[in-house]
């Protein structure tokens, strides 16, 4: 055990399963001070987290709380907390104490109505419907079914159509997204989206040729397939200088006259031939003679090389 890690060993880690989730939540709530806000419960591991659209309930949607303290309430979603898989709803809040440095704009008191995060399992998607007679009906979807995608201009993205599962004639459209107010420094939307240049024909390139160098770097060293002078010099390692002994040896070799090969004289040829004949005449075994005959036919590349060099020497002289 090291003293630096003893804290992590004894601390409660609910993900490891040493303590139940509800118990952990209760202890966290008990131990947190009032201004620290309500505990957000267990964290969802990152790979299990979903976006609002994947969940099917987005900010601005009507929802029905079917469980817990606030059961029966119908409210709209303010915010979705991905980490704890819970929603903050309008008018479902708790009075908490908040220190002054954490006050929002326009706050006058330490007491603040702060929305309670309500887990996604306690919530069901709801929708308003008006009759011809003007009577308002609420529809609560137990489950949601997604169908074919369409491009939503309000969200600027492709969204699936939302239906009540098993009652797929009832479509619940996505709510109006929160419209952002333009700042004084904002570029106006039509100007930002304006296309100053449009392709007219395929005969012409889509943009002027001079523009190409701004898109891509023609001098990028990744594109060069050949060594530059500097690159080649850098990659070549220097040579180890010759030692004194090596220098002396090389000088001696250089001072020696070059070896010149000359053809055999007639006398030498006769001598070699006579010696060979002497040995071969002694042999009685026909098998050995046959073997020698076979061996004599094989070509020795080195021998041919020497013959060639002799010929070259003769022609040069």
């Amino acid at each position, binding site marked *: 055990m090291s003293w630096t890690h003893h804290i992590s060993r004894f601390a409660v880690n609910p993900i490891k399963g040493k303590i139940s989730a509800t118990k952990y939540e209760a202890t966290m709530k008990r131990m947190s001070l009032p201004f620290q806000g309500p505990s957000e419960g267990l964290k969802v591991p990152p790979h299990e987290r979903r976006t609002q659209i994947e969940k099917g309930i987005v900010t601005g949607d009507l929802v029905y709380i079917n469980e817990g303290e606030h059961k029966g309430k119908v409210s709209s979603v303010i915010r979705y907390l991905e980490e704890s898989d819970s929603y903050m709803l309008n008018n479902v809040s708790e009075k908490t104490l908040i220190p002054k440095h954490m006050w929002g704009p326009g706050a006058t008191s330490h007491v603040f109505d702060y929305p309670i995060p309500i887990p996604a399992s306690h919530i069901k998607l709801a929708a308003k419907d008006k009759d011809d007679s003007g009577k308002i009906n609420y529809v609560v979807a137990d489950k949601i079914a997604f169908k074919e995608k369409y491009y939503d201009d309000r969200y600027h993205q492709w969204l699936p159509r939302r239906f009540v599962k098993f009652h797929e004639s009832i479509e619940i459209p996505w709510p109006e997204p929160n419209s952002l107010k333009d700042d004084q420094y904002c570029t106006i939307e039509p100007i930002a989206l304006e296309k100053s240049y449009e392709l007219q024909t395929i005969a012409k390139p889509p943009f002027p040729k001079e523009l190409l160098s701004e898109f891509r770097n023609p001098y990028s060293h990744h594109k060069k397939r050949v*060594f530059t*002078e500097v*690159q080649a010099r*850098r*990659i070549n390692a*220097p040579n*180890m200088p010759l030692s004194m002994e*090596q220098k002396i040896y090389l000088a001696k070799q250089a001072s020696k006259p070059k070896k010149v090969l000359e053809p055999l004289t007639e006398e030498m040829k006769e001598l070699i031939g006579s010696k060979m004949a002497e040995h071969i005449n002694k042999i009685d075994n026909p098998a050995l003679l046959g073997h020698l005959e076979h061996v004599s036919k094989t070509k020795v590349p080195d021998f041919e090389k020497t013959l060639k060099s002799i010929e070259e020497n003769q022609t040069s002289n």
Partner: protein
Amino acid sequence: MNVFGMMLGPSRYMVPRMASSNILSITASRSLSSSLVNQGPRSDKYWKLLKYVKPIDKTVYSAGEAIPKGVRLAKTKKMYPDYEYEPTFFKRQNRGLFGGLQRKRSKNCSTKGFNKTLREHLPNIQRAKLWSETLNKSLSLKVSTKVLKTITKEGGLDSYLLKDKPARIKTLGVLGWKLRYDVMKRQEKNQLPKTSNYQVQYIHKDGKQIKVGKYKLLDILYDYVRRDSYYPIKIVDFKKAHYHLTIEEVVEKLESYSYDFTPVIVNPRTQQGVEANEAKDARELQA
């Protein structure tokens, strides 16, 4: 010879003049013959694992050549020649003079159940300050005790590094190889002529003894190159184009501009004069 040597001497070299029995004479002759047989081809004295050595790329690349696949471009210049026998394991041997000693392994064996566990044997490495005669400074190196013994036997670090035998080159290691290069380069420089006034940096093919270094010559060259071009040339661009050249190439470039080398080279007449003056001074000092 010390006192103990004197005392021990006679007994050590004492040989029975006459064998007292036949058996003794036979054993003596046998031992002699066996020793003669063992004097055959000598096995290598060093032992180093070269199984994991990777072959080095010896090709000399030139500008305009296609870059082969798998060749990495270097960000900086290579300062030392490549070492052929660099092992890929037990890399601490690259940072000291280990003399080819590497980690060995064997097994620990328990006495009761003969259970075996792997263990390692490390070479005996010490940090030592070794004096280099040519570099004129002491180097703090990690050295194996075996190499320390060899260095004393060779008579110094430099002679240990400069030996040409293949066994020495294989066991030098990367650090030893680099030190060898440094020592050899310094020796080359020390051979160049030197007086109290100047040190010759480079001798050209035609015998010009140049007193200044490459960068001073480049400063001179910059003026010529700038004058030569129609457009102004920034010093940065000049550096990019010329700083990788060797001193020999710089001198050749200056020759192509027909530069008068007199302020930069050693004038043979003045050289004689300086030597004479120095000799005079020496004589006066002695007197």
